[in-house]
């Protein structure tokens, strides 16, 4: 398999890992924002 002239799976793996990491950060970061806010409110109240 060759993507954009790169056929070494190690190099392709690095690029794929980068994009997956960013996808995780964006989804996790945005979805957790409100949940953490609720947890902190609960902690402050206790």
């Amino acid at each position, binding site marked *: 398999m060759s993507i954009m002239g790169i056929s070494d799976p190690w190099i392709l793996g*690095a690029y794929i890992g980068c994009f997956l990491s960013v996808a995780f950060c964006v989804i996790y*970061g*945005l979805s957790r924002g409100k949940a953490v806010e609720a947890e902190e409110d609960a902690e402050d109240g206790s």
Partner: protein
Amino acid sequence: MAAEGVNLTMFGAMTVAFIIVTLVLGWYGYRNTRNNEEFLLGRNKTSPVIIALSYGATFLSASAVIGFGGQAAVHGMSLMWLCFLNLFVGIIVAFLVFGKRTRRVGRRLGASTFADLLGKVYDSKGIRVFTAILIIVMMPIYAAAVLKGGVNSIAVITGLTEYYNYILVALAIVVGVYVIYGGIIAVMYNDALQAAIMFLGMLVILIVTFVVLGGPAEAGNSLAGLWDQKIGETNLGVLPGFNGWTSMSDFGTKEWMTVVTTFLLGVGVGALTQPQLTVRFMSAKSDKDLEKSLAIGSVFMLVVVGSAYTVGALCNVYFENEFGMTAFQYISSIGLGTDFIIPQYILEVFHGMTFGDVFISLFLLSLVCAAISTISALMHTIGGAGGYDLYSVFMRSKGADKDSSDVNVNRICIVIVLVLVVVYCYLMPNDIIAKATSVFMGMTAAALLPAYFQALYSKNPDKPAALASIVTGTVSYLFFALFINKGMCIFLPVCEMLTGQAVLYPDSILAFLDPLVISLPISIVTMAVFLLVKRARAAPEVA
């Protein structure tokens, strides 16, 4: 023939605008800095966007773009693993495993610096002093390398190499002014401004590179094919085991050891224990802010680092098409080194292009920003280590009952160290940015990572275990850096002075193994042994 420098009027106008905004932000920081805690942390005054961009700009900086971008030109796309580690370790693990705990523990104990945090968790003046000294001794090496990278870029791209000394002093003064007066608030707001410029600059250069080389697929195919033309040539700047710019090197070879252990692991793992980065966590108002920072920081990092390493590797195709040489061969032919490849490429690729001077000026400004953002954060951290940590311990030994709240002591420390950094710039060798980054990050990881982790996750942190781990990590790292590793010994040639040869085993594969790979496991094992012994001793008492 090499392209001439950028249009100075254009660059001058952009620089003046940048300096004005920088000084305004410095003034804003100054107005909002009333005490030492605000100088050190600016607590509760920083938004998620500012935290993310400040973290990213401080982390990446000139080192990633100029230093490691140049290394990508020589060693190829295997450097993309560093981009992955920057994202996975430097963002995901750093924010989720270390960041939130650091913020909470730091807030609970009222810690204002990284050394203060460790000292308070372990209730140890020794650990606090050691960490502060480590910062004061090691960080100037990294700061000087980054400053040198920024000055080199300005000198090459503007063609003002004869004014090198003036540029160096001017850049140091700009950094000094806003760090000294504005504290962390000015540093973080300026970081955010600089991050935005870096983001834009790197995105433009990535797109232009693809356009100039005929699109991503054509560029990748050309780079893959370049190795077939160059295989067998000896002046490529690589070591045995190299397989081309689009392939990973052979496992266990000198090339693999250098790229994987020094560039990838040294910086990839070392990012976790960066004092200048941990204060970003302590600056956050809430965990929610850190969670939000994660999303912004990761996109920023992918664009800046991913672009730098991809463009770094692909610029070989450009230099081959234009001059019949690889990037390393070309830069060597004009008497420069690896750290100049990216600035020279920018100058060449935009030369003669419509609005070329605008893009060159933008990119040069982003390189300057990259250098300034890191140096300012480093100087701020050094100022805190000296003017807050060491001075507080000293004052307490004289009878004071609380930590120093005198901002001016921090400022004096910053001025003194900044002068030393400028002097060190003249003394250090060329092509040093990537190695200096790796040395500083590797050293802090080997010495402090196990103790830092225990400080955050243990209910009852054990001081002797932390001390033993710190000492063994430091000593083993120093030994391997000064006596075994060929790339590291240049910082302090002790081995050469004692034995007459640069390292003890110059022809061994060990000479290419980064000290972190040895010393971090030693540091971890030492801590584990101490904790197991403590548990074994405690068991009979419990029974």
